[in-house]
């Protein structure tokens, strides 16, 4: 009777606060080259260029599009903070993300285009495959990682100060002093 909370509404496995999310598509016949160039273009968009670290969805750790089987298939693979299930609706109504995906999805089978959100939703859900195994090497959310990076950069700046060693002598500074040696 109450069947909706099966695989389709709970795709992906989580490790700590982070969930994996993978989509697999079939490329429309003959559209391999045009999809490849659409992805190249995406790669050169502001925020998506290597080193920009500025994807539209700020809770995503990383994302990749992989063309395989002689460019007849496409995978979209990502990790993001929070349960996918809860954020699904937001994803489907978020203008920038949808517009971006629209450019890619139009090259794959089964996609009828915007603005029929219900159809897009069904299409994406049908392409989702949960990972059989998923591991992570750090536990933090993107927000925590960014904060940690800012704090470390600040700490390094403090260490560059000529008086740093002396300042870190205070007993309260011991945990920082322990991290200051290398």
């Amino acid at each position: 009777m109450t069947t909706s909370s099966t695989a389709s509404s709970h795709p992906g496995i989580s490790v700590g606060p982070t969930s994996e999310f993978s989509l697999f598509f079939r490329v429309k016949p003959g559209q391999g080259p045009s999809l490849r160039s659409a992805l190249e273009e995406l790669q050169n968009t502001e925020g998506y260029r290597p080193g920009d670290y500025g994807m539209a969805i700020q809770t995503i750790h990383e994302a990749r599009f992989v063309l395989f089987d002689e460019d007849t298939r496409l995978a979209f693979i990502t990790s993001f903070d929070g349960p996918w299930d809860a954020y699904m609706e937001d994803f489907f109504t978020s203008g920038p993300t949808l517009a971006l995906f629209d450019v890619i999805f139009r090259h794959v089978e089964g996609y009828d285009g915007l603005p029929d959100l219900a159809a897009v939703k069904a299409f994406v859900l049908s392409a989702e495959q949960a990972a059989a195994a998923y591991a992570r090497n750090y536990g933090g959310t993107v927000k925590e990682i960014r904060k940690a990076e800012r704090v470390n950069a600040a700490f390094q700046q403090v260490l560059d100060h000529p008086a740093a060693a002396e300042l870190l002598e205070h007993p309260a500074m011991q945990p920082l002093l322990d991290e200051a040696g290398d």
Partner: protein
Amino acid sequence: MTDVASPHLELDDIQAGALFERPSPYVGTYLLLHITDSADGRELVRRLHRIVSDSQTSDRTGTTLTVAFSYHGLRALGVPQESLDSFAPEFREGMAARAAVLGDVGESSPEHWERPLGSAEVHVAVAVLSRDPAGLEEAAEKARQAHAELPGLQVVWRQDCYQLPTGRTSFGFKDGIGQPAVEGSGRPSTRPQEQPLKAGEILLGYPDETGELPPMPTPQVLGRNGTYVVFRKLHTKVAAYRRYLRERARTHDEEELLGAKMVGRWQSGAPLALTPDRDDPGLGGDARRNNDFGFADDPRGFKCPVGAHARRANPRDALDHDGSVDVRLHRMIRRGTSYGPMLPRGVLEDDGADRGILFVFAGAHLKRQFEFVKTQWLNDGIFIGAPAEKDPLVGPNDGTTGFTVPRRPIRRKLHDLPPFVVTRGGEYFFAPGLNAMRWLAELTP
């Protein structure tokens, strides 16, 4: 997105509770009924249909009567299975079955709930609110007549409730301020920079913020102009809350400040975003100004902590650049009310009285509104980059969790937060439109 013309709401078919503020102050009663005979149940619905308040006329009377049904209630009335199956899955499961998801664990878990809350015995909820005891008595008498001489009906639970003239609830804070405006209701937004919500966010049968119609139970006549209602009896541990703050504050002012940091507003209702350093009762009581703010100018939470209850429950513009969330998909109408005696000012010892809030939500989407806000924003901290923190006031804290109060030169961290709110029970209901009530009354099984 898609251009949907502002809908004409069928106000004379919509129960008043969802769209309109109640009189203030008021007194009220919640009744839960159990149907043992479906013909008597339908007779009740027929009688209630005549006295229920619609959104056109309720304004004039100062008294409102609202009726809602649980999944088991609809079944007891003889609603066909096919139609029952068309309701939202969370509604069909019932609140007790959602306990693990909602964080109703430990002291809050259904095995400790007040009987018969959370059980299949709860069928019909009737709420009567009035400006004064005389009006309430009159309305309650009408409700009594509606179930009088119907042996197939039992009142299985009753709770009196009220709103103080100050609007304050048990922890001392004015409540019920932050509410979304609904397109077509004729009530303006209290936050000028915020467009009214599409009617379909609150009412079934109208386009919602995604541009589509919310999933609606069938047949159409049953779903249209209805809304889902979340009802939760939340016991508040006021003495424990006061002691927690007292132990961590050197002065009365600091106590007030810490309390305000947890909520995001001062006790008067004045928002920290507008007056971060001291309460401003004039602002708190001014409905034109007390909701007119955002958080975009305070991303790190120096004025209002990112983990404060009201900022979690409605982050407003704070997540605009997050790209992961559309805050407008997670709003709700709240119709909470106080129950039990207030703990007198200054008392730090628990007097054993049961007091708190009857939390009431109205909205078209149980899952992406109530359950999302409760699970992602109040019970969790992933979205603010603090997965270990929960809502300091209403979250399922367990004595080990903490709360960060951003402050210069260094942040203040509150440790060892105990739970201040305990769920005593609740249920998911459906408040149908008036035509739907007639349909229910006329069911022929």
